[in-house]
Every structure is written in C-alpha cells, then in structure tokens.
C-alpha cells in the first residue's frame, strides 16, 4: 500500500481514474433515475410513494459504506502511519455526513405518508441518527486542533470506535422490534423486491458509489495541494 503513499503518484492515478468515475456517475445516475421515475412500476401497497426508495436506500448504503471505508483508512493511518490514509478519512467524512443526512430526510418524508409519522425512536432510526452525529463529530475533531497531525489522530480514534455502530444499524431491524421494515435486498434468502424495481435501484446505487469516488478523489487532491501550499508558506517564512 505504501507504493501509493507518494502524493505525486497518487495524483497521477487519481487523474487517470477521475474521468471514468465522473462520466460513470453521470451516466448511472441519469439512467438510474430515469428508470426509477418513469419505467419502474408503482408498488402494490405503497403506490407511487415507493419511488423515494431510489434515493433513500442508496444514500443509506453509501452512509454505511463510507463510514467503514473511513474506519479502514483510520486504522491504516494509526497502525502503519500511511500518509494518504488520514487525507482520505478527512476527505470522506463530510460526504458521508451528506449521505446520512439525505437518508434521514428522505426517510422522514417517506415515513409520514406510509407509517403516519415523521420520526419514531426505534432501533433503526436512532442508530442511523447516531451515525450522522459520528460523522459530525469526526469533522469537528479534524478541525479542533491547531496541529493537523493531532486532529488526524483524534478523528481516527473516533472513526474506529464508531465503527461498532455499523453492524448495529444493519441488524437493528432483526435484533429488535422496529417500525422500520427488515432488509429487502441484502438478506440471506435473496431479495424480496421484484426485479423490475431492483434493477433501477442497483443502477442508482452504482451511480451514488461512482459519485462518491469522484468527490473523494477531488477532495483528496485539493487537500494535498493545500498541504503543499502550507509547507511552501512555512518555508518562505523561515527563509525571510
């Protein structure tokens, strides 16, 4: 992994990947949302309201995925002192927070017409709210210290501690009686969602994933440039 630690090499690879990820994201989101809004059928129980799923579910998947990725990067930073891992974690958390927020908002808008409530303190909703707060805490710790290295260290510890919440979110609907439904896609006996709705969902999910890749690479690149500028400023100050 340390082969990719060199910022110049990372930037070269990122520049190679970015166009594919960017165009892929636009294409998958375009096709996915077209299928979701115009082609996919209405649900037999929920009617047209089911279309909120095509934003809600991929956002929730991304919020969980990004947190796990951030925790892995934080472990790499703490244990192997991988210099780019901290940058990756710093670049990821605001994006993850955005997806967690989107999950909560779309879930609330979906809950009102279907369940009859904007919010209930059940296992799934509460653990998802905690994930959102963990992201906010990670962002706050990142910027809480004058010395960026100390910020990296503190935020990495929080990211690792918070990863315990990820399996709790996933299995909350199985462990406890909740208002939220159990899993429809990622379950042992296969999806309980009809293929005419599953395909649009998977294509939108791919679009969300590629959108994240694009965004995180751009943010990492700009973070590396900012660090370089800070170093140059410092060197000039010392010289004068």
């Amino acid at each position, binding site marked *: 992994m340390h082969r990719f630690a060199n910022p110049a090499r990372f930037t070269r690879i990122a520049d190679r990947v970015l166009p594919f990820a960017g165009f892929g994201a636009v294409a998958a989101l375009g096709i996915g949302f077209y299928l979701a809004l115009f082609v996919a059928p209405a649900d037999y129980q929920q009617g047209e309201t089911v279309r909120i799923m095509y934003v809600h579910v991929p956002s929730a998947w991304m919020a969980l995925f990004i947190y796990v990725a951030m925790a892995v990067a934080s472990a790499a930073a703490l*244990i192997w002192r991988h210099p780019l891992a901290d940058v990756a974690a710093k670049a990821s958390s605001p994006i993850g927070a955005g997806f967690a927020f989107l999950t909560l908002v779309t879930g609330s808008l979906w809950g009102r017409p279907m369940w009859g409530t904007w919010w209930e303190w059940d296992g799934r909703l509460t653990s998802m709210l905690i994930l959102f707060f963990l992201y906010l805490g990670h962002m706050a710790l990142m910027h809480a210290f004058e010395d960026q290295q100390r910020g990296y260290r503190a935020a990495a510890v929080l990211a690792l501690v918070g990863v315990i919440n990820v399996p709790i979110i996933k299995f909350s609907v199985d462990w406890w009686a909740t208002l939220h439904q159990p899993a429809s896609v990622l379950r042992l006996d296969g999806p309980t969602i009809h293929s005419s709705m599953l395909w649009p969902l998977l294509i939108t999910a791919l679009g969300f994933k590629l959108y994240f890749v694009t965004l995180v690479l751009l943010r990492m690149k700009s973070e590396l440039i900012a660090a370089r500028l800070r170093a140059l400023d410092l060197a000039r100050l010392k010289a004068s």
Partner: protein
Amino acid sequence: MSLTRKRRRLYIVLAALLVFGGATALVLTALDENLDHFRSPKDLIAEPPAPERGIRLGGLVEEGSVERSADGLTVNFRVTDLTESVSVTYVGILPDLFREGQGVITLGNMRADGTFAAREVLAKHDENYMPREVVDALKASGNWRHGEELSQ
C-alpha cells in the same frame, strides 16, 4: 522475540476494538427487550402493564375485526400476533396503509377491562416490494401469502 512498532500498534487497535465491541454487545444484551419499539399481544397478556403507563402495542390487524362506528372517527379492531390478540379502540384518522392483515403499531394504554385505548396508530410495511400485476398474478395462481410472517 520483540514486536515491531507497527505490529504492536496493530495488536493495540485490534484489542481495543475487541474490548469495546464486547462491552457494547454486553450493554445491548442487558438492555435486550427495552430496545424493542413495541410489545406484542402475548407480552401484554403475560405481563399486563399498569393502566396509566403509556406503551406501544404492535402486531397485525386481525382479519374481519375492524368495526367503524357511526361517527366515522371511532374504530375498533383487534391486534394479533397469531397467538393472542388484544381489542383496540382508536379515535382519529388512520394511516393509508391501515387495513386488515396489515402490521400496525399503536401507542396508548391498557384499560382495566383488558382492552387497549390507542391515541396513535402507525402502519408498518413489510420488506416485500412488487408491482400490482405481479400480486394479481400470484393471487390468480393461488401462490399469494399475505400476513404470513409476523412482524414480531
């Protein structure tokens, strides 16, 4: 044999995760059913709560049990877990998904006569997503099963 610093940090991180994960698992096990959002009719009959205490009762709306009264707002129905059932009275507007055989969660309290006075009724929906034509086809071929698995 001495450990390299990287090895040592790896073990520290793994041990910390294990301890913290274990502690979380113990706390969640201890809290157990307190983390449930609602209780089933069986639970309520086994341990009746104090009448003044607000609780959530969840289960399926029993087939053929829904009675609407003349004022158009009061509804009587039974909530069942397919073993036991509890009579529920509710005055107000029901969610769109409310129907016989549907999962619901009702917030209210037990009356002295063993019936449940609900002040809020929420509808649950299950994990099945299908277009209407597929449901019709399943019904026509006799393969349709509704409300078979109980939302605990």
